[in-house]
């Protein structure tokens, strides 16, 4: 099966792969028309490689020179470029090609609506916060004089004016800023549940009504004390937590959505006249013949009808070897065409493909995820009932003697206990940690993951890309004694020079590194898919010898020695074996130390891989992992993790390939290593952007520290309430002191959480020899 050099279809020889975007229905998916009649469009594209302001500057500069492009706004922080262009003068494929030329390949942002929704939501939350904080500051100013002066220092008119002014400034806080709490409390009451928002809303409402009565009808049984300052401060504190939460979630979600698009947008289809035409991927039908060039991704499931190639299916099946594809064999949408151009016949498109099945499997697995209740919520439920009960007790206790004091005491109970410290305790600590992690290259998608990770007792690792590098490590296992090693290396370097196969690339790199030269004169070079390459060299005596490099079958080796390496390749001429090389995966630096550290912490470490059993076992032995299995498909892994969970284990899954997606979604919690497929990252609770497995150890210990601080915070909040509530019931705590106590307790909680902003990623190595 000699590789066929297929002629590139003439119709598209100079075509660019984005031509499919020039169909209006396609570009409408990521663009908006300026006005309904104009030909000016605004498009949003995602440029993953734009990292800094210099990149965005270069992009803007280059695109602005393009005829028909009216304006360009590039933002490196969001990795997005907004392009305003005229459809009569240019087309998307032209500026897509332009971006590619200058080294910034782009993707259309089709989820534009979701992104705008998120922006609007985030802005609204920030606006609520800003309104609350500004009104609070001014209300504080008005409240300050009444705290300082004696009862007769200010005229009654002045006191009344201050109250009115405070009321005016509290109105926006009540009517706008606090609405999320009020409406959530209302909906939880409708479901007959007592949420954290119920006492919050009750406190806000009672404090506001009492204050309003005291302002406009002073002298009734409700007295004449106002609580506007406590009220606005309280709302502001709560909103800070909410806003940080929204911001964090949006940042991670936006980045990942765009990377999920792996399938090509446009393909080459053979039309009825036998010519190749560019069509949008969404227009592919079953039975179409498509032309797929090397380096492209298959857009649909189907079978090869013409040509030979190898495909990279590692993301879908976990198989790290390229899979040989001859005429008649199946290819899978989402896998990559590696070596040569082929023609394929489409058998499944869109929802019917294996790629979509996998995506759906992930989606359904994620809905099965065990919900982890926040620690505070567990404490909150009985606490909330306690608070309400205490408030009622206070009212009953004082009602007969002094109704004003009764309601004041009840408000004091609600304000002093206003579960501010309690509701801040968990998010403050978790957000502090999340921010610290983000700076250290660890992104968190679900805050609950911090708690989940602190509780795990079993860690399941994927192999490739997680514990090992994707690069292949080459070793010269055997060399023919009669052939000089320089000549062997030169031949090895030369014969592997022109192949795109990952193994050939690894061998080529190895030979060059050993000072081999890839410039030997060589004739008749051929590459055989699923075998190797062969070529003819001329020796110094003038004889032509045919040299082959490849697997045992290709080189005619019958007695292949047993090995723990991932695979073996041979360099032969005729029946003589010149050299035997082994390829193994390179274990990541720190992997061994990190694993032994984790084991010493009492964690059960397991290894699941889609690769052959021997190399997996070998790697496990190297790293000291007792429990390792090879040949695991996505379903097997899912089964394994579910079994562990049924035994009551809390499983942390660390993976990177797309086939880990369902497992990652089903596990108690999960971490994706950043070089993996974006889809998996979208499912994983945390994403480690670096390549260092050692971060895991410090990550786990920092999560434990976070939960410790959460518990301290909760304990502090509980003690504070235990002291404050009796005083408030006794009527010994004026509302302003209750407000001050509430603020102080919240502040202490925040300061305690700030201790989490220090994270030494390398501290785990200190205990190592």
């Amino acid at each position, binding site marked *: 099966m000699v590789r066929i050099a297929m002629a590139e279809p003439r119709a598209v020889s100079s075509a660019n792969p984005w031509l499919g975007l020039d169909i209006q229905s396609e570009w409408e998916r990521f663009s908006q028309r300026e006005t309904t009649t104009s030909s000016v469009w605004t498009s949003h594209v995602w440029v993953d490689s734009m990292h*800094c*302001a*210099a990149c*965005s*500057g270069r992009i803007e*500069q280059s695109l602005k020179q393009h005829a028909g492009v009216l304006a360009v706004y590039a*933002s*490196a*922080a*969001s990795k997005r470029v907004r392009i305003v262009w005229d459809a009569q003068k240019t087309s998307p494929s032209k500026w897509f090609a332009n971006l590619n030329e200058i080294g910034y390949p782009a993707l259309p942002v089709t989820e534009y609506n979701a992104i705008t929704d998120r*922006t609007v939501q*985030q*802005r609204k939350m*920030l*606006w609520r916060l*800003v*309104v609350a904080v*500004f*009104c609070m500051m*001014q209300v504080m*100013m*008005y409240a300050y004089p009444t705290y300082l002066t004696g009862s007769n220092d200010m*005229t009654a*008119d*002045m006191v009344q*004016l*201050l109250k009115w*002014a405070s009321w*005016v*400034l509290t109105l*926006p806080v009540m009517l706008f800023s606090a609405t999320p709490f009020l409406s959530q409390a209302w909906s939880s009451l409708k479901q007959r549940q007592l949420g954290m928002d119920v006492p919050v809303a009750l406190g806000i409402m009672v404090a506001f009504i009492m204050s309003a009565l005291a302002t406009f009808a002073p002298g009734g049984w409700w007295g004449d004390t106002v609580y506007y300052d406590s009220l606005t401060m309280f709302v502001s504190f709560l909103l800070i937590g909410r806003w940080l939460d929204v911001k964090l979630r949006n940042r991670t979600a936006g980045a990942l959505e765009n990377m999920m698009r792996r399938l090509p947008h446009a393909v080459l289809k053979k039309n009825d006249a036998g010519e190749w035409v560019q069509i949008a991927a969404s227009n592919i039908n079953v039975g179409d013949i498509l032309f797929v060039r090397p380096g492209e991704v298959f857009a649909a499931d189907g079978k090869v009808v013409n040509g030979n190639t190898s495909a990279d299916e590692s993301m879908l099946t976990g198989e790290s070897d390229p899979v040989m594809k001859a005429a008649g064999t199946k290819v899978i949408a989402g896998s990559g065409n590696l070596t040569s151009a082929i023609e394929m016949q489409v058998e499944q498109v869109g929802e019917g493909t294996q790629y979509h099945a996998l995506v759906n499997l992930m989606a359904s697995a994620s809905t099965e995820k065990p919900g982890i209740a926040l620690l505070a919520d567990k404490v909150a439920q009985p606490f909330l009932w306690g608070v309400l009960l205490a408030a009622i007790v206070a009212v009953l206790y004082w009602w007969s003697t002094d109704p004003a004091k009764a309601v004041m005491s009840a408000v004091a109970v609600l304000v002093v206990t206003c579960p501010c410290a309690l509701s801040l305790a968990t998010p403050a600590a978790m957000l502090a940690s999340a921010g610290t992690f983000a700076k250290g290259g660890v992104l968190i998608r679900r805050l609950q993951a911090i708690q989940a990770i602190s509780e795990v007792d079993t860690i399941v690792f994927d192999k490739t890309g997680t514990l090992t590098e994707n690069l292949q490590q080459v070793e010269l296992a055997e060399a023919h004694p009669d052939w000089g090693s320089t000549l062997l290396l030169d031949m090895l370097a030369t014969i592997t020079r022109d192949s795109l196969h990952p193994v050939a690339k690894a061998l080529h790199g190895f030979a060059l590194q050993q000072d081999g030269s890839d410039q030997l004169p060589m004739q008749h070079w051929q590459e055989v898919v699923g075998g190797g390459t062969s070529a003819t060299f001329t020796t110094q005596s003038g004889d032509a010898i045919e040299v082959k490099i490849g697997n045992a079958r290709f080189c005619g080796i019958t007695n292949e020695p047993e090995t723990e390496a991932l695979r073996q390749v041979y360099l032969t001429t005729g029946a003589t074996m010149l050299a035997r090389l082994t390829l193994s995966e390179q274990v990541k630096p720190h992997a061994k130390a990190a694993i032994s550290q984790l084991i010493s912490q009492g964690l059960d470490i397991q290894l699941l891989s889609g690769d052959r059993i021997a190399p997996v076992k070998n790697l496990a032995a190297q790293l000291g992992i007792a429990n390792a299995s090879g040949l695991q498909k996505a379903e097997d892994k899912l089964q394994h993790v579910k079994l562990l969970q049924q035994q009551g284990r809390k499983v942390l899954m660390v993976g990177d390939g797309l086939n880990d997606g369902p497992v990652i979604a089903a596990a108690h919690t999960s971490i994706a290593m950043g070089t993996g497929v974006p889809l998996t990252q979208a499912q994983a609770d945390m994403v480690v952007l670096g390549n260092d497995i050692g971060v895991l150890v410090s990550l786990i210990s920092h999560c434990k520290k976070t939960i410790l601080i959460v518990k301290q915070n909760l304990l502090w909040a509980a003690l504070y309430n235990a002291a404050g509530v009796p005083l408030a019931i006794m009527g010994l705590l004026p509302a302003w002191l209750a407000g001050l106590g509430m603020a102080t307790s919240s502040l202490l909680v925040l300061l305690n959480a700030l201790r989490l902003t220090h994270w030494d990623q390398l501290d785990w190595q200190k205990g190592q020899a």
Partner: protein
Amino acid sequence: MEIAFLLIPMAVILVFAILGGLWWAIQTGQFEDLEEEGSRILEQD
């Protein structure tokens, strides 16, 4: 002290004016990209 009767309502109006300015800032996305804009000026086109 009579001036306080004028200053207090004025302060209330000022707060609303400041909030108006902040509303504009938020809606035009002034707070959405705090790192990049600062370094943009250092880049030569």
